[in-house]
């Protein structure tokens, strides 16, 4: 048995060594130059004596946990606990902001969204198993109200000043091409009470989305985020309250269509007040907004703080530049006069 295993694993090991030898210089070079450029950090280089030999395959070990592993994925997810089974369904729903088809996870009556994170160069050591793709999947709960807002908004068929129609859940959740919505029936009835008006006729319930309730719910979400962000790390902690509010709203905006919900929220919070104070600032604000809008399409939540910071920095720099220009103009004017 040992000989057979050894002979079977020899070619992969040899190929592995060749790959290491041929790729190591390239990878090391790129990593060094990349890190130097990005971080501007040049740590102390210690001389390392000896060398590390290439790895050998250990598939000869009997009954290893990684036997038969296919396309492994590294996932961090809420702990299902020992009392409940962790069996979940992947369901296809429309993303609440973009409307694109997106996979969600439905485990133990909880709806989860999936995101992944990957460094430019990275791989995994998983015990005695190597995975080339260094991607980390993060699965976090998502409030089903976000998912349901676009569906309920369409379902009420509002026209003009009319408040719209009351409708039953099985009618609302019937979305063409997306049968997954029906699987959420059990949780939707409970979670949509907070943003809907409900009429009970006999044993039937009819729902209609209520804009004022949605706004109140959004403001509650902003409050929760405003309390959480300063505790993340020192960079968030030193932010001004206004910047924290803007960060909170931009994170919330990842799950809201701009029209009507994000606009409704910004109007309520008076976040566009800069446009009223002056044309120069309005122009800067306009540029900032357009850039943020473009970047919102490409980046996800965890990057949002950085994006917002970039936008604000650009705005500040621009304002300073304009201020400098104004000073120059005054200087020239005074020289002309004298």
């Amino acid at each position, binding site marked *: 048995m040992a000989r057979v295993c050894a002979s079977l694993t020899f070619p992969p090991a040899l190929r592995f060594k060749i790959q290491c030898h041929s790729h190591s210089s390239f990878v090391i070079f790129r990593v060094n130059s990349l890190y130097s450029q990005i971080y501007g950090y*040049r740590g102390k280089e210690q001389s390392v004596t000896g060398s590390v030999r290439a790895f050998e395959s250990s598939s000869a070990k009997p009954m290893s946990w990684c036997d038969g592993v296919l396309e492994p994925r590294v996932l961090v*997810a809420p702990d299902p606990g020992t009392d409940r089974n962790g069996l979940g369904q992947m369901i296809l729903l429309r993303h609440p902001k973009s409307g694109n088809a997106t*996979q969600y996870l439905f485990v133990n009556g909880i709806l989860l*969204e999936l995101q992944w*994170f990957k460094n430019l160069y990275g791989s995994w050591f998983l015990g*005695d198993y190597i995975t080339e793709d260094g991607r980390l999947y993060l699965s976090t709960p998502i409030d089903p109200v976000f998912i349901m807002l676009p569906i309920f908004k369409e379902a009420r068929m509002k026209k003009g000043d009319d408040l719209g129609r009351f409708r039953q859940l099985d009618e609302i959740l019937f979305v063409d091409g997306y049968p997954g919505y029906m699987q959420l029936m059990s949780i939707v009835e409970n979670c949509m009470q907070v943003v809907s008006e409900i009429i009970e006729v006999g044993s039937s319930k009819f729902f209609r989305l209520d804009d004022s309730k949605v706004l109140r719910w959004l403001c509650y979400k*902003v409050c929760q985020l405003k309390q959480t962000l300063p505790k993340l790390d020192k960079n968030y902690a030193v932010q001004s309250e206004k910047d924290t509010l803007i960060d909170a709203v931009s994170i919330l905006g990842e799950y809201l269509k701009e029209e009507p919900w994000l606009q409704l929220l910004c109007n309520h919070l008076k976040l566009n007040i800069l446009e009223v104070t002056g044309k120069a600032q309005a122009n800067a604000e306009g540029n900032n907004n357009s850039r943020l809008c473009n970047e919102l399409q490409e980046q996800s939540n965890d990057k949002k703080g950085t994006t917002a910071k970039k936008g604000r920095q650009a705005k500040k720099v621009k304002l300073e530049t304009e201020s400098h220009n104004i000073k120059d103009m005054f200087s020239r004017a005074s020289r002309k006069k004298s």
Partner: protein
Amino acid sequence: MFTKLGGLSLEPKSVPPPKRTGWIGRGNCHMEKATIDLKRDGKDLSGRVHQLPCCVKHDGPASVSHYFKPKHKGVGEDEGLPLQEAHFRGRLLQGTTLPLPHGYSGFVLSKSSPPTSDENSHSWDTKATFQDITYWNHDYSPSQNDELFRAFHWLTVAKALHNPVTPEELASSSVTL
């Protein structure tokens, strides 16, 4: 080849976090009729899940535990993170172990296709679980500005953002912004 600097540059606290070298995308796994089984009875890999700062062109078993031997080096220079050192291909790596936040577990999933089932249906089974991740940097010590460290901030933000709101909570809160 690059020159070495003598000392560390002191960064003011208000400096925004450095630009990321990673990116985050939505999970478009292109799966139809997929099920996923998150269970805790697989192999426990806690303490042995390592994120390397380089690409290893290999998918499969390897004698990691024979050659990759991290050593604890007390507390690092930055923010008091526990420092570990290891070597890979003769290069010094500096790392730290991040425990997963409360309420979360790590899962190593493997795709399995039941032979009797439809080709469009897949399932993901848990092969192993873990409670911490050790990530490694090449030639700089771990800090709270590292990508993986900050990726876990999203777990905290997601809890605040997506905790369901009850009508009682909404009614009792004075929403004054």
